[in-house]
């Protein structure tokens, strides 16, 4: 029972971390850094120096079948450890190492009882709002190009 509960907590923690990472990966480093200024940052050290590399992006045959290698993408990654022990990971598309480091720092803070509320409120929430706003605008632009077909009916009138 206790084990199940712990697992549920772990899953919950992982889901929260993943949701935060999804927002951060979509944001610019300058915006993440700007929002982080609202928080007195905890002491931390680099566990993995920020670095650039590649991932092979995979697609699926027919969209839903067996995987195949489409081509690579540049990525940056970093890992940090707070002085209180939480380890955060930062991964993002592109070559912005500073952004990877900022994501890692946020991920560590999301796992810290002391910082989770602040980082959610000051950083993740506003960035999520901006991300959704941008997505909605693009969706609205696409929606305006939706075709309304009508069929000519013969022999009327």
């Amino acid at each position, binding site marked *: 029972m206790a084990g199940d509960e712990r697992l549920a907590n772990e899953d919950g923690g*992982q889901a929260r971390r*993943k949701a935060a*990472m*999804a927002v951060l*990966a*979509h944001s610019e480093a300058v915006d993440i850094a700007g929002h982080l200024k609202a928080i007195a940052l905890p002491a931390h050290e680099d566990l*993995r120096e920020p670095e*650039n*590399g*590649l*991932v*092979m*992006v*995979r*697609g*699926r*045959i*027919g*969209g*839903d*079948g*067996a*995987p*195949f*290698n*489409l*081509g*690579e*993408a*540049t*990525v940056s*990654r970093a*890992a940090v450890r707070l002085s209180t022990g939480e380890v955060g*990971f930062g*991964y*993002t*598309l*592109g*070559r912005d190492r500073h952004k990877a480091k900022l994501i890692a720092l946020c991920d560590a803070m999301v796992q810290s009882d002391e910082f989770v509320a602040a980082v959610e409120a000051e950083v993740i929430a506003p960035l999520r709002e901006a991300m959704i706003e941008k*997505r*909605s*605008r*693009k*969706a*609205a*632009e*696409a*929606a*305006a*190009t*939706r*075709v309304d*077909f009508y069929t000519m009916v013969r022999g009327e009138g």
Partner: protein
Amino acid sequence: MYVAVKGGERAIENAHRLLAHERRGDRDVPELSLAQIAEQLSLGVDRVMTEGSLFDRELAALAIKQARGDLIEAIFLVRAFRATLPRFGATEPVDTGTMQVRRRISSTFKDIPGGQILGPTFDYTHRLLDPQLADGFSPDEPATGEAPAMATPRVTDILGRDGLIEPSPAADADAPVADLTREPLNFPADRDLRLQNLARADEGFLLALGYSSQRGYGRNHPFAGEIRFGEVEVEFIAEDAGFAIPLGSIALTECQMVNQFKGSATEAPCFTRGYGLAFGQSERKTMSMALVDRSLRARELGEEVVAPGQDEEFVMSHSDNVQATGFVEHLKLPHYVDFQSELGLLRKLRQEFADANEAPQMQEAAE
């Protein structure tokens, strides 16, 4: 064979200096920024990312600038760059069904769930040069409409529900995914390897092959079941973190071609399919890719292999424009020793020819 020749260092250095000067062009004209290339020549950037096989808009823009707009040279530069970085692993396969669609059309059904969305397209333009663009033009803000909350399922998924189209080949968890960047090409090639090759293949080569297959060199009479373009989320299982980490999104174009039937005594006839997928907005590329993917399935579907577009060894060995450029352009390199030996042989043959023709004349003169 060509050999290294010494000398000419200064000439080479000055040639590169001249190249840099010509690349810059008239210095009274403002210099192009990478952002300008990435934003305003975006389809060229998409092509360089697709055939360079590296998703990174800024790098592709840099390559285009450095290559003076020669896209194959830019693709070469991007390929060379990718070799300098370590690979952390492979992403989870992307799910194009969850794409944030910016364009999505079907030539098979007019009423598809989610609708036909034209998006930013050259289709239906009159292809008349627009003098307005010649000097500073600020376009209207795009129109907006109400985006429906409904999902946009793939058209092939809709056909698949009734069994009218063949299912995609199922994933085999035990089979490694072929990777031509790690293993040399081997024939016969499975479809995963073929698709990787076609994804990075020269667009012009695939366009010509796809076109040839439509005109009767092979059997290809498809419908464009669906073409979609938009953003797809990418996830990567990071070993250190221990779960699938969101990396952000990439722009992809996907094309599903719907072709004529297969069937057997035991299987009801159903449509077959060809598949295309590429980085960015690459519609001609993915359509051509899907045509060639389908024609390369001739062997698998028991069709007679009679045309170039059905011959996987021919297609896959000649589709890569970096390899092709290397072999064609190596003819520019010094072949002096080779040529000297051929010249020597030719002189000998000509001497023999002359001797043979002279001998009878001398004989005639003597008579």
